[in-house]
């Protein structure tokens, strides 16, 4: 597929960005230079460093030109624009991405966002405020559920089955990330951005 080199001059900085024709033609996506995100919750790069994903109150968005223009990505849930609380790319496979939503649990794509499936089996509720992927074992994720079924859940098979681990971080949590720093106890750390600041806990309990 032909690539179009686009030079963007922005406040003295020249950025070379590649727009991919295949992505531009994806069904179910609408493009806008500056969509109304309203409340932004999450920003993440895919594993290839090519697509930037943004989760917001008005849904899921993708940019393939370094954030200059955005396409809204259709998600197959009963709400037309689910509130996307977290965007969690697989660190090894650019085609795999998980999103956490305020009302529909966790959604997963394995084809770069063309199709999505709900992966909520075992979750006690569908209001998911944080979603972290293990950089060493991408099939292992932690999800933070609020309200009904509140708690921290873990899957070790890419979302096929979740098991509740504990209560999770105290207070309102904005972001949850697995960080590849050894705890000395056989696991790595989970960092949580909360209303009370940054917290971390071992992920091995």
């Amino acid at each position, binding site marked *: 597929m032909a690539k179009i080199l686009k030079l963007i001059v922005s406040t003295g900085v020249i950025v070379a960005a590649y727009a991919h024709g295949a992505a531009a033609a994806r069904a179910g996506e609408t493009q806008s230079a500056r969509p109304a995100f309203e409340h932004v919750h999450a920003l993440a*790069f895919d594993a290839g460093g090519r697509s930037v994903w943004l989760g917001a109150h008005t849904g899921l968005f993708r940019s393939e030109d370094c954030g200059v223009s955005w396409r809204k990505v259709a998600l197959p849930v009963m709400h037309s624009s689910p509130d996307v609380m977290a965007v969690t790319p697989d660190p090894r496979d650019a085609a795999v991405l998980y999103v956490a939503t305020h009302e529909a649990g966790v959604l997963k794509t394995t084809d770069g966002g063309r199709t999505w499936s709900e992966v909520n089996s075992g979750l006690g509720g569908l209001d998911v405020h944080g979603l972290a992927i293990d950089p060493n074992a991408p099939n292992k994720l932690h999800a933070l559920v609020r309200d009904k079924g509140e708690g921290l859940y873990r899957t070790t098979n890419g979302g096929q089955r979740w098991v509740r681990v504990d209560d999770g971080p105290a207070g309102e949590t904005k972001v949850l990330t697995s960080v590849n720093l050894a705890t000395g106890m056989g696991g790595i750390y989970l960092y949580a951005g909360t209303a009370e600041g940054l917290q971390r806990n071992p992920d091995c309990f």
Partner: protein
Amino acid sequence: MGGLPTSTVDGFAVDPTDAKVMYVAMRNGIFRSDNGGWTWTAAANGPKNVAAVAVNAKKPNEVYAVTMDGVIVRSPDGGAQWAAMR
């Protein structure tokens, strides 16, 4: 967590090639740690009211952030300099 304001942490990102390098996004701005979060330095000319931050998986010095009103900003040098994307 020295150097990080006692405030809500809205966004967090880690350098995929060096997990000790991490970034926090908050109303006070963007902060970087090089030691796993023990000490933090504010991005002197970075934006305020930041909702989220991300590191380019293939170019870890390239860091993006989005403000609470939806403006995308980019740093080409690990958070030292920032410019809005237009």
